């Protein structure tokens, strides 16, 4: 790892992820907002239906990871540019990494473990499409 260079890796990642994100984001927006009844069609059932499909699971997880790391790396450079006090800068970077990691873990968990109709829940809390127990 002697030749590993965070700035170089970051620069390459921003370009690669940026190109992929353009495709992912516009696919995401058109599928959610334009096709099949448009924005009015979005409800819990729509999201639950998408997340039941392995293709959209992996699509959404890729979008989640790339967008969060891309955004966090951008924030890292902004912090490095504008925060001059060393302790404050370090603190902000730690907070940035922690919040990004938390969002990635929680988002990934939701995408792969979402169960819209958990067994044993009271019927009045469940969406209407769930089978009546």
């Amino acid at each position, binding site marked *: 790892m002697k030749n590993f*260079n*965070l*700035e*170089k890796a*970051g*620069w*390459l990642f921003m370009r690669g992820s940026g190109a992929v994100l353009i495709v992912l984001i516009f696919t995401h927006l058109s599928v959610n907002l334009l096709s099949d009844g448009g924005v009015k069609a979005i409800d819990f059932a729509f999201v639950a239906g998408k997340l039941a499909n392995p293709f959209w699971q992996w699509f959404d997880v890729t979008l989640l990871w790339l967008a969060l790391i891309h955004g966090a790396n951008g924030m890292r*450079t902004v912090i*490095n*540019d*504008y925060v*001059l006090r060393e302790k404050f800068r370090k603190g902000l970077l730690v907070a940035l990494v922690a919040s990004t990691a938390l969002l990635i873990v929680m988002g990934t968990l939701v995408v792969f473990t979402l169960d819209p109709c958990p067994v044993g829940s009271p019927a009045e809390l469940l969406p209407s499409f769930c089978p009546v127990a």
Partner: protein
Amino acid sequence: MSDIAEVQSFTVTFIIRRFNPETDTEPYWQDFDVQMYSTDRVLDALHKIKWDVDGTLSFRRSCAHGICGSDAMRINGRNRLACKTLIKDLDISKPVYVEAIKGLPLEKDLIVDMEPFFAAYREINPFLQTSAKPEKEHIQSPEQRARFDDTTKCILCAACTTSCPVFWTDGQYFGPAAIVNAHRFIFDSRDEEAQVRLDILNSKEGVWRCRTTFNCSEACPRGIEVTKAIAEVKQAVLRGVR
């Protein structure tokens, strides 16, 4: 015989950022009204002020013709050479603001300490390195020479480096001028140590700090495409010199 119109003369207000380290704790702005001709340059205004109004005004200038690179300063918020900025190109209905270039330690009035700038320049080995003995000429084709022609134009005035927002906040960054001068030798077919310079610029404070803001290209009084040169050095780090 009056078919040659008299050269127009008008009063221009210059607001100059002054600082005397022996008496001032903070820099301050001072205005001067100067009688100027449309053929004059900002440098002529500074001369008039220094010679006729206030002899304490301090600034650098040597050749006064855009070659020595001494009189880079911030004119109306943009880095320019005072000797190449014509009064007729400025909006003289408003005052003209003149201050020292940013990001280097201010010494007095329009003079900054250029040492950090030249230290970065020296670090990239700005000289031809070759193993051949200096017994006969190094052959180079016009095409090989054209490859780095643009970056040979640099006069080390620091207008690019001190217009760079990354350099303003990160004084360790090599800065556009050092990378331009590395580019001049990296792409020189006679030089044999391109990889050494690429390794230096692949460091934490090297080319990856560049955010492609284009301030440097806009600031260069020699018209060098600085951002393009930096991008070519980035590509050379990734893929080798082509």
